């Protein structure tokens, strides 16, 4: 094995202020190997890969990479350019695409001489075509990336890396936005390429695909590597214990009889110029004591659906009823007043005002409440008391209620939002990707709260791209594809996956 070693990370360390993101992490990678890197949120996986790729400068440690001839050579740290020329390609957790440019331009960006007067576009196109033929990863090359679906963008990201003849490919949560089928295809393609010697590190929270496609598993916890295991020796329980250090609690779901409808959408249509985020004649009903799961690949109208129910977007046609009352002029304020609690998809962007305090964020949805204000002046002591109480009740941990909300970790931000939503006794809870990117502990907590709300008589509309999450929580399941909703009765992954891909079976 030692001869075929292509990469070694030697005792890499990185801290951000007081946070130790990586503490002397060492890792080896071999030719043709697929290594899965696992860990809870904030364990330091992305940070480690960012040091490998030169985005972050390590505080300590070094990296060696094999040259094409196979000799290990030290890598210049802190320069993506150096990593790229050493044959390292990286697919980032968040897309790094210029949306105003075509896929082809995104792919060739940086690999052509900047100051040349002409470009070899034909040559570049032929080379990309070659990569696409070889790997089966196909994306339209001439459409501006902004018009591509998330799955297509993901493929463009991978093509970017392969175009540069990467010998080491890093994939940071590549399947978070793909259908199960797309994910499987991706891994099959990658499997084929490892046959040609490509070495792969991939990060994922989905244990199923880790077990199915990796050769070896490395686990990070709180910035240190806590273990490595051959995939053939691992199962879900073993991995989970390595990641969390203990067994995870299993969420209990009791059967319940649904009550009166709390949300009814009839004939809702939303038209968007881009046609990507539209809704066509959507009908659905959520009842009390019920969780309705909406499964689907992102970009099929989930955002439009969520923004209609949040009051952010007026539908072009159709009607909305909450708790039996028709909402004539939906806007966020009316929806809140009508008893709709909203957990937004992008918590940083829509959920909190990061520069304002935790206490302020906890009352931001009820500024008219006399408990919060008198004669237009904020009631500070009441705000503080409220924040203290909610932090306790919902276990919001962080630097304190007067600190900026931005300083909280992702999981704690989500708890803050939950506290806000549940405290107002919502009749309907719109939960849009509520546990995306959360680790097992935090995810379990969110699930427990949603089930609790269901038990308390609320209806829950759960939108998720993670089928496991839907299967685990929802009483009923609908699939959204291309702006249209269809009910599924089967709980079979395959069936639902096909519907998500738009196949009518």
């Amino acid at each position, binding site marked *: 094995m030692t001869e075929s070693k292509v990469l070694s990370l030697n005792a890499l360390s990185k801290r951000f202020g007081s946070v130790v993101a990586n503490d002397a992490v060492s890792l080896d990678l071999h030719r043709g190997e697929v290594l899965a890197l696992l860990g809870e949120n904030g364990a330091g996986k992305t940070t480690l890969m960012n040091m490998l790729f030169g985005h972050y400068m*390590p505080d300590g440690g070094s990296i060696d990479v094999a040259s094409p001839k196979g000799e290990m050579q*030290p890598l210049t740290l802190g320069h993506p350019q150096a990593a790229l020329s050493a044959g390292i390609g990286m697919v980032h957790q968040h897309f790094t695409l210029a949306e105003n440019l075509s896929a082809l331009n995104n792919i060739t960006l940086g690999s052509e001489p900047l100051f040349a007067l002409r470009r070899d576009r034909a040559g570049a196109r032929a080379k990309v075509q070659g990569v696409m033929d070889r790997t089966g990863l196909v994306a339209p090359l001439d459409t501006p990336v902004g018009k591509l679906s998330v799955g297509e963008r993901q493929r463009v990201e991978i093509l970017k890396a392969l175009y540069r003849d990467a010998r080491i490919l890093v994939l940071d949560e590549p399947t978070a936005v793909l259908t199960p089928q797309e994910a499987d295809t991706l891994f099959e393609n990658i499997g084929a390429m490892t046959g040609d010697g490509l070495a792969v590190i991939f990060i994922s929270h989905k244990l199923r695909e880790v077990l199915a496609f990796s050769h070896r598993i490395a686990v990070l916890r709180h910035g240190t590597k806590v273990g490595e295991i051959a995939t053939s020796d691992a199962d879900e329980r073993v991995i989970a214990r390595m990641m969390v250090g203990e067994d995870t609690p299993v969420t209990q779901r009791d059967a319940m009889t649904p009550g009166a409808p709390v949300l009814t959408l009839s004939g809702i249509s939303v038209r968007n110029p881009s046609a990507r985020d539209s809704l066509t004649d959507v009908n659905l009903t959520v009842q009390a004591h019920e969780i309705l799961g909406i499964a689907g690949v992102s970009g099929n109208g989930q955002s439009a659906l969520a923004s209609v129910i949040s009051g952010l977007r007026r539908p072009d046609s159709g009607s909305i009823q909450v708790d039996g009352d028709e909402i004539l002029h939906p*806007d966020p304020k009316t929806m809140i007043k009508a008893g709709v609690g909203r957990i937004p998809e992008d918590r940083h962007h*829509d959920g909190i*005002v990061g520069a*304002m305090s935790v206490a302020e964020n906890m009352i*931001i*949805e009820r500024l008219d409440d006399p408990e919060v204000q008198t004669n237009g002046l904020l009631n500070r002591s009441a705000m503080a008391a409220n924040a203290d109480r909610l932090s306790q009740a919902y276990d919001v941990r962080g630097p304190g209620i007067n600190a900026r909300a931005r300083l909280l970790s992702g999981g704690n931000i989500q708890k803050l939002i939950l506290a806000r939503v549940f405290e107002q006794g919502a009749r309907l809870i719109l939960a849009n990707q509520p546990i995306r990117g959360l680790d097992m502990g935090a995810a379990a907590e969110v699930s427990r709260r949603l089930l609790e709300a269901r038990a308390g008589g609320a209806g829950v509309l759960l939108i998720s791209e993670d089928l496991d999450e839907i299967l685990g929580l929802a009483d009923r399941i609908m699939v959204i594809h291309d702006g249209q909703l269809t009910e599924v009765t089967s709980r079979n992954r395959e069936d639902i996956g096909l519907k998500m891909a738009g196949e009518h079976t």
Partner: protein
Amino acid sequence: MIRIEPRTAPGRWMTLGVPVLSAVIALALAAIPLALAGADITVAYGEMVKGVFGSVFAFSEMLTRATPLMFTGLAAALAFRAKLWNIGAEGQLYLGAMAAVAIGAGAVDIPGIFLVPLIVILGAAAGAAGMAVPALLKTRFGADEVVTTLLLNFIILIFVQMMLEGALKDPMSLGWPQSAPVLDQGMLPQLMPRMRVHSGLILALVLAGIAQFMLARSVWGFRLRAVGENAAAARHAGIGVNRSLFGVAILSGGLAGLAGVSEVAGLKGYLTADLSPGFGYTGIVVAMLAGLSPVGVVISALFIASVFVGADSMSRAIGVSSYLADLVVSMSLLCVLIGGFVARYRITRTKTAEGVA
């Protein structure tokens, strides 16, 4: 390799000391043009200090110059807090001034206790109206307010010239384009005999205090901050973003209008097309130096006014070009900007590790 990282907790001396230090550095840099112009540096700085603190008159002149800057600074600070980029305070100032002479120069002849408030209110309303237009264009049509407010400055100034040759022209001015003077009882009271400093200053200070309080303690201020820091989240939380923006636009324009009122009804008595030497633009500088804090605006307006009046008087005393004053003000701005950055971020040098040791 140079890296830039935010400071986790900027020390106390950092937030206070750095701006002061940057101002000192800026003044030190002013020695370069002074030396090039062949001036004696120590004499020059002495004259600069004297130009502000040398006499009650000098000091009162500094206060006089700071007054409009406080108004325009507040106008910019409030709007910028909501991320509404009002670059149009200059034009709104003229609108306020026009309203002041339109009503105060004899259109109504009522006692001062009624006339002064009327002038103030109408002046603010005119400025507000001037900002309502770009705010409307932004919220309705998505037209960038930076550009619309900037262009409106020109339009309004030309409009002022038109009015000064037309409806507002003083028949007694022998044809010179200027308005009739504000009635005596309509003038803002002077604060000191024989000095130009007037009660517009008091108004500015009071308004700065109110703005500071309202921003921190009121629901209105809460909404404003939320909209400015994260409009998407504010909207999601049921805050009327466009309404808030519109409200702050009105306020911002009104404050800028008050700058015009205070210059006309506090200082000059009538309106000419060159009433403001760019107070609107300098107000932006003032607001940014103040970190968009209303009380900070007061301090930074005093600072900018001191630098200008001091450098202006110095240039006269030692006989270098009077463009020096603007030069020193601009260098101060750039230095304080960089200083503010140093206070918030840490620049560290890390070795570019060339492989393993």
